[in-house]
């Protein structure tokens, strides 16, 4: 296999199978944004720091700018586009909107997915748990206060059995 050859890969994204012929050097972020036009996942630094490229890989948040698309074979990728059901928003998306946790919105897809992964694994996180979980997602607009409030609100809703 030489470096100019593309490889045929299949990826499962938001429950749907896709086949691509790509060079192995393409990151998952590039393939999502450029090949699939799923532009909800953002590029902020391309360096694995800012978190705007966050997607869920088998339910766990990862930096898609540091992950080769070819390595994602056999795994389930969830992007922000996979959260809402048609026009029905996921409770976390709803909570972010209701509690003012979105301003410019650029960090929001990554932030929401990370929050979802947290709440899927721990339905009653402490404030510290929340801040730790999202500590790899930077926000320059909100100071994080209302993001933490929104995530907490989801915990309470979970207890309330929505």
């Amino acid at each position, binding site marked *: 296999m030489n470096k100019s050859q593309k490889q045929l890969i299949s990826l499962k994204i938001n429950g749907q199978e896709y086949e691509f012929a790509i060079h192995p050097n393409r990151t998952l972020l590039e393939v999502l*944004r450029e090949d699939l*036009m*799923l*532009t*909800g*996942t*953002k*590029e*902020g*630094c*391309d*360096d694995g*720091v*800012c978190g*705007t490229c966050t997607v869920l890989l088998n339910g766990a948040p990862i930096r898609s700018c540091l992950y080769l698309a070819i390595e994602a074979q056999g795994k389930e990728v969830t*992007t*922000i*586009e996979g*959260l*809402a059901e048609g026009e029905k*928003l996921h409770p976390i*998306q*709803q909570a*972010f*909107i*209701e*509690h*003012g946790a*979105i*301003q*410019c*919105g*650029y*960090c*929001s*897809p990554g932030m*929401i997915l990370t929050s979802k992964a947290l709440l899927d694994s721990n339905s009653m996180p402490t404030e510290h748990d*929340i*801040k*730790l979980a*999202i*500590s*790899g*997602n*930077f*926000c*320059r*607009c*909100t*100071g*994080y*206060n*209302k*993001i*933490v409030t929104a995530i907490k609100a989801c915990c309470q809703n979970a207890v309330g059995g929505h």
Partner: protein
Amino acid sequence: MEDLLYVGKSIPRKDGPAKATGRAEYTVDVSLPGMLIGKVLRSPYPHARILNIDTSKAEKLKGVKAVVTAADSLKIKHGFVETPRYPADQYPIAVDRVRHVGEEIAGVAAVDEYTAEEALSLIEIEWEELPVVFDVEDAMKQDAPEIHPSHERVNEPYHNIGGKTANSWGDMEDAFTKSYLVREDKYYCQIRTHAYMEPQATVAHFDYSGKLNVWTSSMGVFLKRAKLARTLGLPYGSVRVRKTYVGGAFGGKIDLFSHEYIAALLSMKCHQPVKIVYSREEVFKGSRHAQPLIVELKTGVAKDGTIVAQQIKTINDSGAYRGSGVVVIFLAWGFAMAPYRVPNMRYEGYSVYTNNLVHCPQRGHGAPKMRLAVESQLDMIAEELGIDPVEIRLRNARRPGELLPNGDSVKNFGLIECINEVAKSTDFINKYGAAKREREKDSKIKHGIGIGVCAYMGGSLIYPNSSSVIVKMNDDASVSLITGAIDIGQGAETVLSQIVAEELGIPVEEVQVDAADTETTTVDIGSWISGLTWVTGNAAKKAAAHAMKKLLDVAAEKLKENADDLAVRNKEIFVKHSPDKKITYAQAIAASIEKNKGDSVIGEGHFRTMKEEPTHPSLATAKGRWTENYSCYAQVAEVEVDTETGIVKVLKVTTAHDCGFPLNPMLVEGQIDGQVSMGQGQVLLEELRIEKGCIINPSLLEYKIPCALDMVETAYIDVITEKYSKDHHYNSKEVGEGYVAGVVAAVANAVYDATGVRLKQTPFFPNKVMNGLEQIQKKKAR
């Protein structure tokens, strides 16, 4: 306030669903058929002449569709400020000389990023390096290399002066002589940067009809259109800047940026769309960062702590071109004279060229630096006089209705109440005393409390100087709100919708916003100087009121009543004394079309501040009315300092603020939170490290903005001094910028309260705090 349905309520933002689902389209997401990837070639030298550029090899590379240099341009300069005194001074693409590392020299457009990168490496340039100067005080010396000639109207024998602001009143010598106490201090602030999450990005498409379509991450589409049109030699009507969502800006996306110009130039050459997206490194290297400011402050006070005189000198490193340097030295004066009474003042500000990157506004634009200086010094004065920090501020704070030296009135200025409220809410005096006592003990972790005050202007005159809004009613009485306003995250579209909904009595969801397109929407003042909510908001109010009047007039005719006898509810117009007599909005619209020569009920509204002033104040003399709208705040920071490591944590910031009244409390709180975080970053974490004009930490790993675990607990106290009324325009005040300043000052004072360490240079990295603690120990030992 009157019973309001929408204004004053925490309505969730309208663009929330688009942003939460990833459907919101930012410039980085725009994709057009045949789009090429553009890249910019930048100068590796801080100061050099370009002797020759050879692009032939790049042009021949397979996949390259266009290469541009200054040879392809009209060589028209632009500037952040373009006035007779301060004409445009920068070519958007370097012609024969570069003055900073990273200055743009050429652009390429190619089929993909790899090809574009390779093409850049094939451009050959012959250089002649020139002498350099990076330190701003060195740049002023007479033996400094000349970056630009000093401004002809500046008499002092300094080199590299881009501009000067000088203003004074009173008798300084007499005032200082009569002062009970005089202090002199000097403050340095680091170069910080915006670190918006969406990088600079532009898509330009010059189509075959001669129309230049532009999508760009900006803070105001009309200013971008004007600058692009002028520098490209195109009629304004041939440049269309289109709406995209903006992933943060904070002042860093106002100016014309070279990549916008280069993307357009490339597209004009090859007629294909060209997209330039900065890498994060380029955002650091190639865009603009905040204006640094040195503040020399000499203050004389009476025995009771009231300010008698202030002499201020500011020195601004504007970088290689004027940028917004001449604005920041003017604003710094404003941030010094607004909150406290200063009976005698001499202010001089110099904006100086260096071979550093060009600087631009960042949230506060000089306020954080000036307030750090004034508030720190005031605390030191208070300590010397034996007065507490709250009392000294109450004695100096301006009262409602006071006239400022430039002729503005502060009008309903709630600063006294802000100071009282924040002090009460945080139990300031008790905590302040407790920290002093704790300081003497042996505990390693110390706590401190500090206060900072700021006043900020809103909605001053800046091109295009006004906003217009159209409210277009649809057949079913839903509304199209047409505005040039751009939502950069502050919630502009939501607030404008609330106002229109309030005026028309229709639900906010039934207002559709059409925004930020220079061709299809109305002119707008732009999302800076915190004017949008006030200026565009009032224009929207007028437009909606205009539409409402048309509806009422036509209803009055139909119902054969006086318009004054009509009321509205649930999109129906009914007769007050006989509510069964009514028509629906939809019926009124149809009637208007029938009776009013086809007028489908379109309302228009326009708003301009400073109606009696032809233009903004003089940047050089600070003379002239500035704004009708001064906000003010008092903020208290509570900190914890680990005296073994020097690490400072901001635990809580309480903000008492007079924003007039909040049109949307949740959005206002969000603005405060964000600025607390930005202030925290500025005072504790953030610094652009520059060596020989080169940024050595051009990444979000090494330029450290706060993360979620750094989150500060926030509390807010609203001091309401204005109200919304249907009868006339409202006076809300800015909330987008001023809070950073109070936080920076409050944290600095709190660190002193906790440790006795007085730092005059941000950021307060742990090593600086430790040095301060060691000095104190040494002094004690003697």
